[in-house]
């Protein structure tokens, strides 16, 4: 037991650093770090005793710490289900939504936190934060509550045997999604960006493999360098650049096949 404690304490700096990165406020970060230590020591260090040596202990403790920090945030601030468009956008949008609407950080704090978590995304985070605050009027109203309000009001993902009302709600939600996407993506040509057209484009029959989806997410949503994204996905820098180029070409070809080449040219 003592050995697990000692080994965990050797990684105390990392735990503190991760907590500080997750919660910018010092008191909150310290509280979160102690929560992590308690979580690790729980049940006679059962989480650490489950370690089988498939990775290094440091990385394993890092993974445990990140999960426990999320647990701490949920315990502290409650749970909330983001709107569909935020979920679809994901990445910094989702993070900012949690920071602004659930944990009620000020926009500046939230932007700084996102800048810490996603280096190089500070400017995009600033735009996204104010866009979120503009789109979600009730952002931050339900702090610290175990609320199911938004989760209930927003329909779940389409189910095969859903009722007509649910289907209508879903359609409305999708329409809302593409309206907001139009505003976000085509800010300069918002008047021309018809949500239905965007929906047609978005559902033009793209068939993305999981790795392709991850590549697009990493490179175009989360600002990860292409070579680093390739390394994460198991490709070298030449492979990943080639794959990305071919993937984008294929997406354009899919749109052209769907008869949307002209719209694509005007929009993009």
């Amino acid at each position, binding site marked *: 037991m003592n050995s697990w404690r000692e080994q965990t304490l050797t990684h105390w700096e*990392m735990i503190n650093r991760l907590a500080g990165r997750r919660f910018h406020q010092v008191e909150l970060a310290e509280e979160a770090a102690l929560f992590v230590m308690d979580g690790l020591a729980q049940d006679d260090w059962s989480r650490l005793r489950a370690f089988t040596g*498939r990775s*290094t202990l440091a990385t394993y403790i890092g993974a445990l710490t990140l*999960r426990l920090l999320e647990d701490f945030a949920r315990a502290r601030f409650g749970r909330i289900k983001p709107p569909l468009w935020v979920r679809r956008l994901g990445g910094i949008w989702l993070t900012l939504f949690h920071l602004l609407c659930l944990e009620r950080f000020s926009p500046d704090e939230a932007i700084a936190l996102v800048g810490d978590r996603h280096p190089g995304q500070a400017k995009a985070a600033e735009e996204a934060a104010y866009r979120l605050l503009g789109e979600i009027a009730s952002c931050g109203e339900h702090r610290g509550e175990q609320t199911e309000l938004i989760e209930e009001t927003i329909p779940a993902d389409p189910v095969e045997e859903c009722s007509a009302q649910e289907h209508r709600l879903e359609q409305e939600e999708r329409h809302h999604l593409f309206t907001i*996407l139009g505003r976000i993506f085509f800010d300069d040509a918002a008047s021309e960006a018809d949500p239905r057209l965007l929906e047609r484009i978005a559902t033009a029959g*793209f068939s993305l493999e*999981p790795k392709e989806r991850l590549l697009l*997410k990493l490179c*175009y949503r989360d600002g990860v360098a292409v070579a680093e994204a390739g390394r994460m996905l198991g490709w070298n820098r030449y492979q990943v650049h080639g794959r990305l180029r071919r993937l984008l070409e294929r997406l354009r070809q899919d749109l052209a096949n769907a008869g949307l080449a002209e719209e694509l040219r005007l929009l993009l």
Partner: protein
Amino acid sequence: MPGWPRSCACSYEFAATQPQAETVQLWRHKEQTTKNAMAETIELAKKREAERRLALLALAGEQPEPSGSCLDPEELAALIEGRLAPEQVEPCLAHFAGCEHCYALWLQLNREWQEQAGRSGRNRLRRLISRPRFLAAAGSLLAAAASIAVFLNITTQVDRQALTRLPKQPVQEQVLSGPVTESSDKTIAKQGSAPPPPAAAKHPSEQSRMKEQAAVSAPPLTEGSKKIAPTRTDRNESGALDAAVPAQPTGLAAKQERRVAQIPAEIGESVPANAGMMAEKKEQEATSLPEKSAATPKAAPQAALRATGTPAPLPAPVVEAAPLTLADWHNRIRVGCQGQPGPDFFATLTTQGKQLLRQSAALHKEEQRQIERLLAALGNQQSAGQQCRALLEILGPAAQGPKQ
């Protein structure tokens, strides 16, 4: 310029506008280049933005359901560290494509791991080494180091070859400056004011010939070898008398030179006191193989005889292991009898004569008889001088001078 004369104003304008036009042209060219670069940058930025929008639209279109259950922390850690097998990685990535929560954890943990790897010196070194630029530089350095090593190796070999030839001069120096044996004193006295031995006179040319051979067989000398080469050349050019005052070699080469010079002294005075080329070759053999020279003491005196025409002091009598020829035996008798041989000398001659008789199959009858007569003379209890006289008589008139 209302007050100026017209011609003045014109010339002023012309003088002022000529360089200005060039400057303006240059400035316009620069402006155009800048504009082109900016347009290219803007075009590239637009293209990237269009790609980003396309990608985000494609991502927004469909959100797949997460496949399988969320990863356990150890699996996630192993994935980050690249310790999972490829068939285990694919399901994990497929799950990330649908599960934003796990995807976010994956991103955060990957970043933390990268930072940790960057902090540890070994990983930093590994990353530094794995950079193509570093690899190129390291490869160039290694190639250069290998070239230097090869070059130094070659030049060191040249130095060694040169050093092994060095003892010929120190031997001469030592013999000339060191104690001289009684017989060699006699030889010098016999020669009197005779001209210097032809071999010694031939020595510089022989030396230069050897140098040329070495130059042909070896690459150009380095600085280190050049340090030795002039010293040697000076000695050769100055001749044998100059060699009595040896130059002071420095460093490792000097040590080796001294060591090589000591070896003949260790062998003893059996080394002849001449410096002819042929004799030098024999001396080199004697230097490199002292045991061999001790076993065959005839080689050195013969070389000395050939080189200078003067007999060298006799080595201590040693029972030879090598087969003895009749001519050698005769030579020994003649050479030995020119000095003041002791009883050991005659005993050795008796042993050698008996040995030759035992090999009588290779001898003519006359030769056998001559040997028997010589043995008989050796068996007489007389003084050394009388015995020598008797022996030389048996050998015949040719025995008065050294037989070639």
